[in-house]
């Protein structure tokens, strides 16, 4: 049994479970749309204001929607004992963790990214900025999933981990948010935004390299405790 086959088993299983619990699948997306829709209602429909804050609102909404789905990443597996089974499989834990993060991104980060142009048009952002929005989210949301999973691993053993998870991970989301919205702002003002994208790439490479180790360590702490 090769290691990659085991990872595929976990990935397939998680996607399968996600599509079986459709509510959990759609809720973050509805949340994403709703939060972003509340801003124009709050600050007024002035096109110039919306143009300035559009990118930021889309990013913050995506970030919160991602966090909303994060708490359930390991929780149900922890409660029914599946997490122990995953940890004691012959595959290294960081690979299992990586498979779970990929499936989490496929069911939250990717749909959020695909929905973002709709919101961008709603905020009246120029069509030329759409590629920047999709590209920054495409590189940024996997990083959100990776960082969030570290917190989810740490808080999975706690009875009320949800709020603690937000407090732990939101500060770590800040660099991702700054670079992401910076790229969109640059694109809206018709400047070069490839620099922002490269920085996001750097962060993503760092995340992919180190986060799986941190996630597996955090899971070990939670299970051991």
């Amino acid at each position, binding site marked *: 049994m090769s290691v990659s086959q085991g990872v595929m088993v976990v990935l397939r299983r998680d996607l399968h479970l996600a599509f079986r619990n459709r509510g959990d699948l759609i809720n973050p997306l509805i949340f994403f749309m709703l939060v972003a829709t509340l801003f124009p209602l709050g600050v007024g429909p002035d096109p110039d204001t919306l143009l300035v804050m559009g990118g930021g609102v889309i990013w913050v909404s995506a970030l919160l929607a991602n966090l909303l789905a994060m708490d359930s990443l390991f929780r149900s597996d922890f409660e029914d004992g599946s997490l122990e089974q995953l940890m004691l499989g012959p595959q290294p834990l960081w690979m299992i963790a990586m498979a779970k993060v990929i499936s989490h991104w496929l069911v939250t980060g990717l749909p959020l990214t695909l929905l973002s142009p709709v919101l961008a048009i709603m905020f009246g952002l120029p069509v030329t900025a759409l590629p920047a929005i999709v590209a920054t989210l495409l590189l940024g949301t996997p990083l959100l999933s990776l960082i969030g999973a570290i917190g989810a691993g740490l808080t999975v053993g706690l009875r009320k981990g949800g709020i603690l998870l937000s407090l732990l991970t939101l500060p770590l989301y800040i660099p991702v948010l700054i670079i992401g919205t910076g790229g969109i702002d640059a694109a809206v003002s018709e400047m070069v935004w490839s620099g922002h994208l490269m920085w996001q790439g750097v962060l993503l490479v760092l995340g992919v390299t180190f986060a799986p180790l941190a996630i597996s360590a955090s899971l070990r702490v939670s299970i*051991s405790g």
Partner: protein
Amino acid sequence: MSQLPFLSVSGLTCERDERILFESLDFTLSVGEILQVSGPNGAGKTTLMRVIAGLSLDFRGQINWCNQPVEDDRPGFQSSLLYMGHQPGVKSTMTPEENLQWAMGLHRSLTREEIWGALEKVKLRGYEDVPCYQLSAGQNRRVALARLFLAKQKLWILDEPFTAIDKLGVAELEQTLVDHASSGGLVMMTTHHEMNVDYSGFRQLVLGEKQ
């Protein structure tokens, strides 16, 4: 390298909240043996199982698998380990067949016939397409126990495997454990149930006795 696998534990000490659960525990488990860990509630049976499986890392002492410390080759140890904890690890939204597919799929690829055969043995044939939340607690436990019939792992660590299983099922399960041990396996288990086995490799380890 054709050495028979065995588990040896020496000087195992574990304390929780400044209360010593067990101290300087030494035992070995060789091929063909069934070790029943018994003791009153809170004696540390589950903790011992979790420590040996490698889930709980909060202990002192040495655990060797085939004369090698388990820390040195955890993937190797885990590929010969089948652990079943208090929670059966059965996903309620999945069917018994899907549950077995992924749970054993971590170890090896399975054919549909193998899974059906295992479900037949735990008397769940005909339920393979029913989501597990529609099954009873005992049936859910049986889904988890069906893994035993698919497992190629040598070392079985079973924590209270008889929970919610009916009398006839318990007798069959005891026979399964004996069959596994006599065909070259090792079994370590906890239960409060009186084991009704007439098998030469059956031993008991009692925790929590006052010195």
